């Protein structure tokens, strides 16, 4: 093999330049700013103290986390059964259902928000039908937003879960049947443990996607308090900029996402050990 020299490393320079200037340095700067007193620019934890003591910021954190958790929970359950059904029905179901998932995965952001406003907004036709039965659906509330979040969690979750299901071998099912295990028993004793890492990984992806959602919420409820909306408002040129506080809120959001990722990874490694033993 040829001796390596510095020239061989040249092609990867653009990649690292991009990563340094548009990932590492901005992130470092955000950390530094988040630890700066907005007035004196001195080192201080005041921004974080504000976020966790002032109700206005706590509400944003709570709203974001709550919606993301609930939507992820239901989104993953529905995705699980969808992927399960596809794997049980085989190749043909996969071929006919994948285009639907690919189609609806592209239906996000403003188009999605608009469609829901059309159906369930104040003048939505589904709401008009509900009113006949004396019911009313309030899309413009934290709970009202949850179905929108679940809607876009389904294609994402399903597309990430399907490869996991194909790892559950048909032969195992046959072997289990021969050993007298019924369908439910097979899934509880063999299928789910094998799938657990995929499910946990998908959960953290769907959670991160939900909690960072901006456009969908922004157009339905411009004044609703979630972390992405608050952060964007703090950097907007139309109002007084609060870059220090906004940086602290961004990092709070990142830490929440990392916590969920860490938790799912921890569970994953615990399960992996269980399988080995």
């Amino acid at each position: 093999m040829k001796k390596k020299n510095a020239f061989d490393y040249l092609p990867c320079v653009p990649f690292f330049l991009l990563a340094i200037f548009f990932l590492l340095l901005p992130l470092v700067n955000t950390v530094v700013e988040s630890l700066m007193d907005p007035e004196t620019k001195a080192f201080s934890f005041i921004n974080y103290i504000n976020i966790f003591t002032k109700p206005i910021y706590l509400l944003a954190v709570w709203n974001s986390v709550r919606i993301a958790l609930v939507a992820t929970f239901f989104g993953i359950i529905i995705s699980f059964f969808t992927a399960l059904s596809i794997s049980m029905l085989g190749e043909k179901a996969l071929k006919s259902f994948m285009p639907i998932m690919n189609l609806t995965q592209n239906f996000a952001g403003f188009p999605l928000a608009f469609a829901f406003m059309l159906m369930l907004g104040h003048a939505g036709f589904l709401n008009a039908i509900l009113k006949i039965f004396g019911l009313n659906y309030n899309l413009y509330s934290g709970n009202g937003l949850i179905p929108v979040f679940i809607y876009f969690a389904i294609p994402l979750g399903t597309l990430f879960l399907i490869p996991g299901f194909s790892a559950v071998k048909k032969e195992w099912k046959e072997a289990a049947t021969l050993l007298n295990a019924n369908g439910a028993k097979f899934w509880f004793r063999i299928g789910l443990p094998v799938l657990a890492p995929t499910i946990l990984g998908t959960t953290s992806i769907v959670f991160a996607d939900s909690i960072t959602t901006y456009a969908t919420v922004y157009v339905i409820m411009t004044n609703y308090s979630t972390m992405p909306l608050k952060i964007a408002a703090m950097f907007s040129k139309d109002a007084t900029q609060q870059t220090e506080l906004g940086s602290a809120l961004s990092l709070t959001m990142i830490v929440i996402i990392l916590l969920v990722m860490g938790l799912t990874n921890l569970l994953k490694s615990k399960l992996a050990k269980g399988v080995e033993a």
Partner: protein
Amino acid sequence: MNTRHVWPYRLILILVGITQIFPILVTLVYTFTTGWVKAIPSGWTMKNWVEIFTQHPDFWLSMKNSLIISLVPIVFSSIIIILAMYTVVMSCPKLDGIIQGISMIPFTLKGVVLSISVIGLYAGKGLFISNRLVMLICSYCVVTMPYIYRGIRNSLYSIHVHQMVEAAELLGASRLYAFFRVVVPNMWTGVIVSFLLSFSCIFCDYAMISLILGSRFVTAQMKLYAMISSKGGPLTSAVVIIIFTTTFLISVLAYQFQKQTGEAAVKTTEE
């Protein structure tokens, strides 16, 4: 499997399929109405479609803007990652771990958070990268990194790249030639899948472009936002359908292309 056991799975897929398609269908039907606030639409018309195609050149300009702003960063990002993977394959396989680690960061650090970090550092500093358009394109490159890295790496794995390069070298090709004439053409599938995923990710972006660039460069998403917040009638739903169809058609086209190149690659290896 007998039919008795199959129907619950069918039912699940049918229900999920219907609820997933329903909002899109409703939006489409709305474009043919004069209004729809009661249980059934108040009337039917083609007026909205005629109007959007004949009286709104500004919307079509915004579509063109969206296409340009999506394609440029994806091309850059693909080139940057292919070059980085060249180093990994040819000189330093250990680097792959680092590149993978970095490439996965934008899965979490994107959208609002990435934009405000970039703005916070560079805006108004008088540097080359303080230019808002440069900031946006570079940020988009970062955002597409996870998709492009994954697509390219997966295809590198699936084609036994080391054997391929060694074989080409044995036949007298230089490493550079071997990589770009033998390896890269076999990676097209991966590149196109990444292209497809990144495209819809940027084309549908509103958060980053509105934060970094403001309203100076009007994309289709901005136009759509303005329409939803001002009128929001059937004309808006026609815009929704056009934007949505564009994203979808591009992915369909890419899939078709992928299928073809996939078959071509198989044929060349068979020969």
